[in-house]
């Protein structure tokens, strides 16, 4: 049998399954009970309040904690037992170390600044990477919905990432934002640093025009706060939403079982896309842009 006819038969069988599901289960109508936004709700597990500040332990805090612990433990453990003949894990870590050193910092920063900022940028990269990766492992953390195992109420399995919550990317962004301004002021002094925001080639312009351009530059620096944090947050959130809807959420929401047969293979495809590309790419982008910002603040003219 030719490959083409095999593929056609496979597709036909697959469509037949979907149609059979449609005929057997039909359309149950819209499901009002299932609320997809509840997957991202953060019910407080341990209530903690310091004055007006809410410090309750919830799902995001757990993921943040796991990601930090994993980052610290794996990196220090591998650094402590470096072998002459590296095993596979050590090779992987060495490769990612090289990536941070050469691709993220080496191209964007002068050598002495790169040496000073390497620990910071590398920590950012590994923390975001671990946080994104844990986000795609189902963990029993959804305490809104529980299931019963031998009388034990276990929260249902769900995927969630610390970076799918806007507060964690925005804090990382604020740290980067403040530190690149501090580095710029340290490298040039306060007023020369502000002057260096103006693009070169404006020496003959009238002061009013230069002031207008300066205002635009100030706005662009503040927009970096939004763009850097929302890029990471929205990518991870959209990935999780996509997996949620493709992996059955859409079928449950609309009450059409046949839709699940169509969307479920897509969920696998998107899962591979998210784990293989997006999780690493977003960590790479976040740290690269941080390096570019620090490089732009310290270099003589940008």
């Amino acid at each position, binding site marked *: 049998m030719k490959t083409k006819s095999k593929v056609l038969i496979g597709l036909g069988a697959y469509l037949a399954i979907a149609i059979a599901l449609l005929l057997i289960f039909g359309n149950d109508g819209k499901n009002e009970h299932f609320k997809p*936004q509840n997957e991202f709700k953060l019910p407080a597990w341990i209530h903690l309040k310091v004055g007006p500040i809410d410090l309750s332990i919830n799902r995001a805090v757990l993921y943040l904690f796991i990601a930090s612990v994993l980052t610290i433990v794996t990196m220090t453990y591998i650094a402590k037992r470096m072998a002459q003949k590296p095993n596979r894990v050590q090779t992987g870590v060495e490769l990612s170390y090289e990536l941070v050193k050469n691709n993220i910092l080496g191209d964007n920063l002068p050598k002495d600044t790169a040496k000073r900022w390497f620990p910071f940028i590398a920590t950012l990269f590994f923390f975001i990477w671990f946080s994104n990766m844990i986000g795609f492992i189902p963990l029993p953390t959804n305490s809104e919905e529980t299931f019963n195992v031998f009388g034990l109420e276990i929260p249902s399995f769900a995927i969630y990432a610390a970076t799918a919550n806007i507060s964690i990317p925005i804090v990382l962004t604020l740290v980067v934002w403040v530190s690149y301004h501090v580095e710029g002021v340290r490298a040039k002094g306060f007023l020369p640093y502000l002057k260096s925001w103006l693009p070169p080639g404006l020496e003959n312009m009238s002061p009013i025009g230069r002031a207008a351009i300066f205002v635009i530059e100030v706005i662009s620096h503040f927009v970096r706060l939004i763009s850097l944090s*929302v*890029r990471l*947050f*929205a*990518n991870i959130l959209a990935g999780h939403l996509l997996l949620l809807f493709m992996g059955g959420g859409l079928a449950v929401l609309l009450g059409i079982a046949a839709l699940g047969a169509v969307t479920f293979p897509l969920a696998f495809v998107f899962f591979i896309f998210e784990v293989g590309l997006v999780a690493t*790419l977003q960590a*790479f982008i976040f740290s*690269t842009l941080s390096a570019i910002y620090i490089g732009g603040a310290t270099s003589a003219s940008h």
Partner: protein
Amino acid sequence: MDLAPVIAATEAITGEDVKGAGKAIALGVGAGLGSIGAGIGVGFIFGKEIESVARQPEMKSELESIRWLGFALTEAVAFYTFIFGLIAFFLS
């Protein structure tokens, strides 16, 4: 512009949830149109990258990191519109 009287009048005539429909349109049109722009942009980046590698194959490794940087920066535009659509849908 205050749309409350218009909404009330339309709801009285049609008997449907006009505000909810507006929110759904905001999410759909906002995220959909944003994806068009980002899709064109991503296609442009990969197309140009293929073109440059075809012209100068020895630059392939250097272009690789720039390609991913450009891809992620462009792709993020789609997600900005998506997030603003979600804000319009859930928070307004």
